[in-house]
């Protein structure tokens, strides 16, 4: 009985003070980004070694230089996969910390990001098991094909979803403020017949117009994401250009929200000018 109790207590302690749980809680976007930067730096060093070994092999063409070239290429390819994995993880953390993105959108993207991280981790094993230089070249080409066809559209989709989520959150906050102010103006209209409610309502309409234009720009940005998600099969889309369009539309939307806030401030000043 005592033994069972002791096991139970230790079990509880393990659950509450599990080190993996604590480290998972501390892992955030900044940490993931630092890991990515570290992996990228290591890859760059390995790539330089690979270039040197490759050059020596092509010049000397000896068995020793071939073995050296194989080892260096293997190392470089492993770290290249590591760079992509850590980048995907940083993107995942950035998406996780974005308040504006809907949970359903997040879940869908998390599944795809996890699948990509898994693919590149598995690919490291393929690289490690390669017997010859030709095997390594084949493994590298395979990774490139996957990167350009599957990973790249996903990168741009995630990168575009984040600013749209941000601007959606800000715009919704602006709309909520406008609604609060509308209710307050209605109260003032009932309480104080002398107050210039007509002007307030006119200014509020102007504010709402700004927020509507912000929504229009947001919708334009969302439509651009659709082109990234399901590109035209007849021609290869320019993902970078589409992403830039999303950012520009989001910035335009943000500007309209900013202007609506300025209008709200003016209405507040008008309300505060009503004497007792």
């Amino acid at each position, binding site marked *: 009985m005592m033994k069972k109790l002791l096991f139970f207590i230790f079990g509880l302690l393990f659950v509450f003070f599990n080190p993996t749980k604590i480290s998972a809680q501390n892992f955030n976007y900044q940490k993931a980004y630092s890991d990515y930067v570290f992996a990228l730096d290591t890859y760059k060093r390995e790539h330089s070694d690979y270039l040197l070994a490759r050059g020596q092999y092509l010049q000397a063409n000896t068995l020793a230089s071939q073995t050296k070239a194989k080892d260096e290429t293997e190392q470089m390819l492993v770290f290249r996969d590591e760079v992509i994995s850590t980048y995907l993880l940083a993107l995942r953390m*950035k998406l996780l910390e974005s308040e504006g993105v809907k949970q359903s959108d997040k879940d869908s993207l998390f599944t795809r990001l996890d699948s990509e991280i898994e693919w590149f981790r598995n690919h490291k094993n393929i690289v490690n098991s390669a017997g010859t230089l030709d095997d390594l070249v084949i493994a590298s080409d395979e990774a490139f094909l996957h990167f350009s066809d599957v990973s790249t559209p996903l990168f741009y989709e995630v990168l575009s979803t984040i600013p749209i989520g941000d601007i959606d959150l800000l715009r919704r906050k602006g709309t909520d403020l406008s609604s609060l102010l509308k209710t307050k103006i209605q109260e003032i209209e009932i309480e104080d017949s002398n107050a210039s409610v007509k002007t307030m309502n006119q200014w509020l309409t102007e504010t709402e117009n700004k927020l509507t234009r912000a929504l229009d720009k947001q919708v334009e940005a969302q439509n651009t994401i659709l082109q990234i998600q399901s590109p035209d099969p007849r021609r290869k889309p320019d993902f970078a250009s589409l992403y830039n369009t999303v950012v520009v539309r989001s910035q335009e939307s943000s500007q309209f929200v900013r202007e609506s806030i300025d209008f709200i401030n003016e209405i*507040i000043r008008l309300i505060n000018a009503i004497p007792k």
Partner: protein
Amino acid sequence: MNENTNLNQPNNLPIPEEKPQVFPMQVNQTTQGEVVSYQNPKKENKSQKKLNLPKINFGSANKFFKIMIILLVLIVVLSIALFFAGFGLDAIRNMNKSNGNGAEPTPTSTPVSVIDSKYANDEDMILINQRVKDLQESLNETKLRDDNLRIPSVDWEINFED
């Protein structure tokens, strides 16, 4: 060999022996047969020149002129001193400004007639004001383009052909 003969001379001619210059002694006599002094003629010339200088007569009429010159010189010196003192002050002022130690005028708000508003302490208005501030902060902090997360640039063209 004769020591006055210089062998470096082209014709080996003997150099004539230099004789020491002897100044003639001048004798000033106040009384006959008594020697008072004897002088070098050069020194005598100098003393004679000094004696020949034209004498300026500063009479009482020129006193006013002298005072005027002294005053003029004083004015010039003072004006030069003031001129440089001005430069010095400017330099000190500039130094203080650059160090931020200068006594800059403190901004004071102009008195505004405060309207005793009916809604100044209204709970809803305080809440709206706070939310407006929060939204403005969020707008300023939001980075819509994150350049840190640019797609990594890696080498995909791996081959071992020349």
